[in-house]
Every structure is written in structure tokens, then in C-alpha cells.
């Protein structure tokens, strides 16, 4: 037999329509020839390609950068929107829940005003309706608002606002960009203050306008009470500013969330309790000047016009004390933020 004669039947046997015989099966399984056959007949698959899963390609960008106000707006937006949605500053779920609880609780006088207006109960309205004392109490009442609501909210908010930048090194993200220290701290301050403002000022405004709407108050009543309302707004702004400045200064000296929060609560509630004990045991109110809450309450009583509960000194001393407290807090804040590093924290 010639080589040609051997090859031809083999090719026929391997053809698709060829019957499967014992010899073909043996050939397919063991390849028992010398290995010189033409393998082109068995090539069935397409040539392999390495393919390309990922091609790294640099894409240029030719857009224009917006000016300073847009950068500041970005910081403000980042912190504010974080309360409501993902993708911005991640406020924790407990913090967001607490903010909701405080917001709803702060609306208690609004709800009672609506109820008293609805059922026309004058007794209920005299307790819950808008008055000098109730406006004061909405912002500066100690229990529960300045014991359980506003200081705790301030503590939760300021806890991580600056300290987390120290902790995670995210300060480098700000200061390696055209963000000044003033803009950085200013926008963080405004963000925290605005969230507190949402709880205190917005609910105060709702309270005032709920009275107008449900009781059908006219211009005479509005003209009569609006100065009180404005004085309360001013007191609320003073409270928000003081809590925020003290809180942020504590946040700026720390690398964790816990210390600034606890320290703020200790300062607000601790000094209050200490001054209260001293006033009751020794009949000396002077220590109230060290308590941010009492200073705020004293100034608030003076400008809103309620009955003063601090008798031994003038409200101007409390105002001076507040100015001094805020001055010290802002000094610490500015010094600490100035020392924040870009290359190493």
C-alpha cells in the first residue's frame, strides 16, 4: 500500500457522515497512527483571540471651573443634603432618626395650637397658644428642649464635622484644592447651624403661623406680637451660634466623634447643674455666668420680655459672658483649623 492509499480512507472515516466503526473509535480515542496525519480535517474551532477586557485610556476634560461661591456651595450642599439622601455626607441613621424625632417633638406646640383652634378650647389655647412665655419656651425652655433636644442635636451634629476630617485625613481633600480655611470652617459652621435652624427656627415659624391660621389672627395681633417673635428668632440664632461654635471648637481639637459630642453636653448641662446646685446651696447665682445655657436664657428673657429668673446680676453680664465664650470657641476653632495639614494629619 502507498501512503496516498492509507490517507484517503482515513479522511473518509473521520468525515462527519461516516459511520462510527471500531477502528474510527480507536483512532479518535488513542490516535494510534505515527502522528503524521494532516490535522487540517479536524480543525473545527475558530482561531482564539486574547480579547481585551479593559483598555486604559486617558480622557481629557476641557471644562471650566466655577468660582469660589460654587466651591462653598458644594461644601454646604454636601453637609445639608447628607441628612436627606445618599451620595453626600453620610450622617448616621441614628442621627437622622434623632433629628426626625426632635423635629416632630418640636412641633408639639404647633399641634396643640391646631387642636385648640380646631375644638375652640380657650383653656387649652391659653396653655399652648402663642404668648411671650411660650415663644421663650419654644427656644429656651430647659426641659425638655434644652435638656433633651437642642444640645443633643448639636452634640450629634458637631461630633464628626471637623474631627472626622482629622480622623480620615479628608482635610487634604479640601486644602489641596482652592478652598481657604475660612471657607472650609465657615461652610461647615453654616451647615451645622442650618440643620439646627431647621429644627428650632422652622418649627418656631410654624408655631407662630399656625396660631395666625387656626385662630384667625389679624394685623393688630401680628403687629402686637411680631416683635416678640423676632426677639425669639434672635434668641434662637444666638443659641444656635453658641452651641455650634463651642461644638465645632471641640470637634476641631479631636479625632473622634465621641469626645466633641460628650464634651459639648458636659459643658452645656454640667455647668448648668453645677451653677444650679451652688445657687440653691449658697444663694449665689454668679456661676450661672459660666453656663452657656443660663447665659442664653438670661439674655433671652431680657429681649423677649419674660419674667427674669436670674436676679443677682444684669442680663448684660450674661451677654458679655456669651461673647467671651463664643470668642474663645472661635479662637480655638480658627487656630486648630489653621494647623490642619495637607500632607500629613
Amino acid at each position, binding site marked *: 500500500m502507498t501512503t496516498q492509499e492509507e490517507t484517503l480512507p482515513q479522511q473518509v472515516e473521520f468525515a462527519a457522515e461516516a459511520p462510527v466503526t471500531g477502528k474510527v473509535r480507536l483512532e479518535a480515542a488513542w490516535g494510534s497512527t505515527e502522528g503524521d496525519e494532516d490535522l487540517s480535517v479536524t480543525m473545527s474551532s475558530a482561531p482564539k483571540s486574547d480579547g481585551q477586557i*479593559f483598555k*486604559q*485610556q*486617558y*480622557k*481629557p*476634560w*476641557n*471644562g471650566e*471651573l*466655577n*468660582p*469660589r461661591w*460654587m*466651591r462653598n456651595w*458644594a*461644601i454646604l*450642599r*454636601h453637609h445639608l443634603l447628607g441628612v436627606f439622601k*445618599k*451620595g*453626600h*455626607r*453620610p450622617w448616621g441613621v441614628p442621627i437622622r432618626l434623632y433629628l426626625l424625632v426632635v423635629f416632630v417633638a418640636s412641633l408639639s406646640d404647633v399641634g396643640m395650637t391646631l387642636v385648640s383652634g380646631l375644638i375652640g378650647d380657650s383653656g387649652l389655647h391659653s396653655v399652648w397658644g402663642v404668648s411671650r412665655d411660650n415663644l421663650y419656651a419654644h427656644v429656651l425652655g430647659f426641659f425638655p428642649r434644652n435638656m433633651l433636644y437642642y444640645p443633643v442635636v448639636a452634640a450629634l451634629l458637631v461630633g464628626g464635622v471637623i474631627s*472626622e476630617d482629622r480622623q*480620615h*485625613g*479628608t*482635610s*487634604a*481633600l*479640601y*486644602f*489641596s*484644592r*482652592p*478652598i*481657604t480655611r475660612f471657607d472650609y470652617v465657615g461652610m461647615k459652621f453654616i451647615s451645622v447651624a442650618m440643620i439646627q435652624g431647621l429644627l428650632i427656627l422652622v418649627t418656631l415659624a410654624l408655631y407662630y403661623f399656625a396660631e395666625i391660621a387656626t385662630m384667625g389672627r389679624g394685623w393688630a395681633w401680628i403687629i402686637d406680637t411680631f416683635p416678640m417673635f423676632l426677639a425669639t428668632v434672635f434668641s434662637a440664632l444666638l443659641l444656635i451660634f453658641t452651641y455650634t461654635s463651642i461644638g465645632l471648637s471641640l470637634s476641631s481639637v479631636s479625632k473622634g466623634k465621641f469626645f466633641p459630642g460628650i464634651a459639648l453636653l458636659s459643658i452645656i448641662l454640667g455647668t448648668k447643674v453645677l451653677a444650679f446646685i451652688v445657687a440653691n446651696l449658697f444663694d449665689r447665682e454668679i456661676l450661672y455666668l459660666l453656663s452657656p445655657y443660663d447665659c442664653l436664657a438670661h439674655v433671652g428673657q431680657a429681649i423677649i420680655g419674660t419674667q427674669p429668673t436670674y436676679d443677682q446680676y444684669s442680663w448684660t453680664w450674661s451677654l458679655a459672658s456669651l461673647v467671651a465664650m463664643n470668642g474663645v470657641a472661635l479662637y480655638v476653632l480658627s487656630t486648630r483649623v489653621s494647623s490642619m495639614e*495637607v*500632607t*500629613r*494629619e
Partner: protein
Amino acid sequence: MQDDLIIKTTNLTKSYGPHVALSKLNLSVPKGATGLLGPNGAGKSTFLKTILGLIQTTEGEGTVLGLDIRTKGDEIRSRIGYMPEYDSLNPEMEAIHQVRYSGELLGMNPTIALARAHETLQYVGLGEQRYRNIGSYSTGMKQATKLACALIHDPELIIADEPSNGLDISARDYMIDTLTNTVQSGNRSVLMASHLMDDVERVCDNFILLHKGKLAAQGRIEDLKAFDREIEIHVWGGASRLEDAMAKKGMSVRREGRVMRILHEQEDTTSLILSCAAEVGAQIRRMHEYEASLEDLFLSIMENLGYEVKSSEDLLGTPVQARKVDAPGHMGGGSA
């Protein structure tokens, strides 16, 4: 030529009280990739802060991208991308939003910043991972996210501070390749501070070496490496005779046992070695070009040359004795 410089400083000095962090730095950094080298405390961080316009210089002046570092800090920071050495990411945020926010902090419109964040994360290899919280990322992914933050506005100059710090081999390779690609195909400039000489060699064409706040050396890496090129031979039989013969012919030889390194000064050094071996009857069983690593050169410069050398031309012109890079003390190496 002046237009090709991205950083130029003249007598740049920064003091903190009696401590001089930077002393009369005269630097000219061309476009492309430049390595910033120096041991701890050399002044690298101070130099970076100075060129970012974050701290006031005590004396001297400088420009970055043609902008005065004393008065145009904001504009400089708008046009460069800075990748910090240390963590600078919020672990509770998703990478896409972190990068978007870093763009917004530069003044980018939020929608544009988001689109660009997708592009840059894709570029650094995190396209599929961009919606994951950064806290769940590996070190390599965090480094890549930091690079994406730096690249979001397509800066002319990227300052990468220890970009491969803490990375495993594959992540490190990827980071280095990405930086190289950014320079080569993106036509951007990179100033890369690193302790890892291999990385600097792979990415950079130029280098700056700082030591104790002073400029120790600057120039092209290629030139720097050229000055210490040697031929390494493994000799069997008659090694001492061969060493003597080569020394007589004026060749610079370092020897440890049967291994010798001969400075490759002339074109015919190889044939001279072979002829010497033939003369003295020594066998050369292995012969190859020995290229000192940048790390060797770094140590050599630090130990032997001090910081008086200002450019690679100066290095090339230094005496042979000073180039004993890694020879043991008994061989005449070490401090020259």
C-alpha cells in the same frame, strides 16, 4: 525652554523658627514625570506644601505652571491634582460620590463632576467597583480612588505623594502603569514623591533629590544611571593577576572574591578586559553589564557626594573614587 518648566524656584527658603526646612532651593522641573526623592526629614512635604501655595516662603520665590506660589496659591491648586500619601477618603462614602465631591470642591458643576467621576474611576480601574463604600476597599483601590480624585479635573500637573505606598506587587504595578500612561498618553506632568526607587525609575524621566532641606541633586535619571555603569565579570583562576593587569591599564576595578566590577568608561572596555584575561591566563566565565539601581545611586549620593552636587552633569564629572557605590569598606568602598 522656560515654557517647558512646570516648577521653577529661586533661592526658595522656608524656616520654622530656627529650623530651616528648605534652604535656598534652586529647582527647574521640566514637563513630564519627575521623581522627588529624599529620606525622611529631607523637606519633601514642606516643598510640596510650598508649591501648593499653602505655606508662605521665608525667602526666595517660585512658580508652578507659571504662577507665583506666593500670591496665586488658589489658582495653582485649581490647576494641579494632588494625591496625598495618607488616607484622605471618607470610608463611609461610595467612591463615585467621593470623587464627584472632590470635583465639586474644585468648582465643577455637580452633574459634570459626576460624569467625570465615572470616567476617572473607569480610568484608574475601579469602573465596576465605583458604587462600593470606600471602607470596603483594599489599599490598592483606595490609592486608585485618591488618584481619581486628583485626576477629575484633568490637571496639568499631578503631584503624587508616595502613590504606591502599602500596595502589593500587582496593585503597585497597576498604579505605576496608570501614572506612566497619564504622562505618556495623557500628556500630563507628574511630580512623584517616593521612597521606592524602582517606581521612580519606571515612571519618571527626571529626579530631584533633597537632603536636609537642601538640593542634593537634580537631573535626568538616565544621566544619573549612566555615570555608574560597570561591567561585572566572574573570574576563575588568576583573578588577582587579572585585577593587577587591568589596574595597570588604568581601569577602575572593584573586586570581591572572584567577582569584579570594572567601570565602563570607554567603548573598548570589554575588549580590554578580555585581552587582559588572555594575557594573564585567567578565565572569564561570566561577563555582563552591571547597571546600578537608583537606590544604589541614591545611597551613593547621600553618603559619598553630599548635597553639594546640583545636577547630573556634576555627578558625571565627579572623580571615580567617589563613585564606589556598594563596595564593602575593605574594598575601598563606602565613604570616599
